[in-house]
């Protein structure tokens, strides 16, 4: 479980994240929705321990990220918003490489590598150098590296961004599988249909604040809208107005 309290991060006076409270539960998929620059990526990076917050605390499975970052990283899998791979290594070698980081060795490591390859259905490319891989194939490598230590918590930053239809379906199926396995999944997306199909809970972030939180059905009911996109536009628009008003006040 990931618990975030009063998280704040400012860049040169700009409030990128401004007091976020959030709980992502085990066996549930929690989505972060927000316009570009709303603070989604910054929030996820702070949870991953890649950026130090100015205030607030993050606890993953009872481990405080600020106090024990290494221990927290050990129970967390991170898929960033980029699909960077090591071009001269095969996916299998990249998984082994990351597996070693988490203390996996010998038959245990090999079994884990194979199970990740099977889970992501990538046996056809597992022993090919990653140079020249498509975006979807690179995405699988990145996801596999994040999964190699079998983390109980997964954070994913726009995991389906730029993928073709087939790859999107595969990725979504993988995210659902994480949920069935009892993992805590926290991911950001700009695709409303994706959020509606996958998420148990959605947090709408605007100008660094969570302006709405609930299940897709609750968010739709709150706004009286029939689809999540309309509900999002209304809630995010309202959030932007509040944010602008707050800026004027100060």
């Amino acid at each position, binding site marked *: 479980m990931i618990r975030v309290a009063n998280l704040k991060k400012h860049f040169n006076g700009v409030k990128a994240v401004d007091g976020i409270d959030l709980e992502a539960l085990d066996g549930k998929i929690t989505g972060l929705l927000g316009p570009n620059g709303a603070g989604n990526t910054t929030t996820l*990076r702070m949870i991953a321990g890649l950026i130090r917050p100015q205030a607030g605390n993050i606890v993953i499975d009872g481990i405080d990220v600020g106090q024990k970052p290494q221990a927290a*990283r*050990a129970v967390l899998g991170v898929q960033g918003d980029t699909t960077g791979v090591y071009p001269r290594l095969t996916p299998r070698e990249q998984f082994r490489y990351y597996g070693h980081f988490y203390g996996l060795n010998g038959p245990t490591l090999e079994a884990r590598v194979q199970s990740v390859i099977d889970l992501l259905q990538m046996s056809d490319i597992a022993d090919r150098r990653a140079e020249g891989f498509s975006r979807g194939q690179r995405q699988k490598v990145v996801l596999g590296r994040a999964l190699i230590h079998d983390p109980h918590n997964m954070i994913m930053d726009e995991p389906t961004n730029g993928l073709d239809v087939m790859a999107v379906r595969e990725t979504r199926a993988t995210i659902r599988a994480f949920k069935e396995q009892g993992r805590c999944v926290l991911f950001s997306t700009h695709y409303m249909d994706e959020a509606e199909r996958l998420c148990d809970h959605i947090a709408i972030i605007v100008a660094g604040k969570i302006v709405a939180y609930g299940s897709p059905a609750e968010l739709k009911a709150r706004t009286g809208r029939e689809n999540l996109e309309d509900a999002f536009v209304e809630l995010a628009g309202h959030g932007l107005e509040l944010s602008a008003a707050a800026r004027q006040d100060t």
Partner: protein
Amino acid sequence: MINDIMTLLWKESREVLEQGGRRGRYTPLIFLAVFGIFMPLQFGRDMIETPVVLLFFSWVPLFLVSSVVADSFAGERERHTLETLLASRLSDRAILLGKLFTAIGYGWGLTILSLMVGLVTVNVVYWSGAVLLYPAYIALGGVVLSLLAAGVAAGAGVLVSLRAATVRQAQQSISLGVMVLVFGPTLGLQFLPAAWQTRLAGWLSGANLTSVVLGVVGVLLVLNVVLFVVVSARFQRTTLILD
């Protein structure tokens, strides 16, 4: 942490040895052919017996290390793999040392290997009935000097690579630094007043070689420590991703 460093070393070595494709794989062999065979053939026994070889020990690692160290962090940034690496369980120290040791190992290892090949070459071609070996002070001084020179180049290179947006940018800055370091003193001497030049030449010709080598070792050692402290301070995981 040793296991983490070894894992990083394995991956980095693969990247280093295979960068530039097939041509990249042959680079160490070309280097060994030039410095281990061609040069010893040209200079003969002097390649082993004269103290000039110590200059070789000190300069060559600079070029070797600078050719690979640019990739250490700028490469991760350019390939967009930095974020996942930093999000892993590895400690800051393990990541940093893994990167440093790879560059040092490459530069130092190839230098030592080329000198050993050179020794074989000279013995085979200029055989005089007895095995010719490097004098002890040259062998010891060379091993230490090349290690420290590789350390300086790796420290400075990692520092540049940490801040560079691309590998090319890092390579340009590092190449410029090496050029200044190698050719700067030679060019600088030209601008010294003639009297100073004469005095310096006199001091050098009369100086004890051991003292000179120890002096250089001391300077390089201090530079290594200073660079390591600076690089460690600069390597902040929580700010690196924003650079």
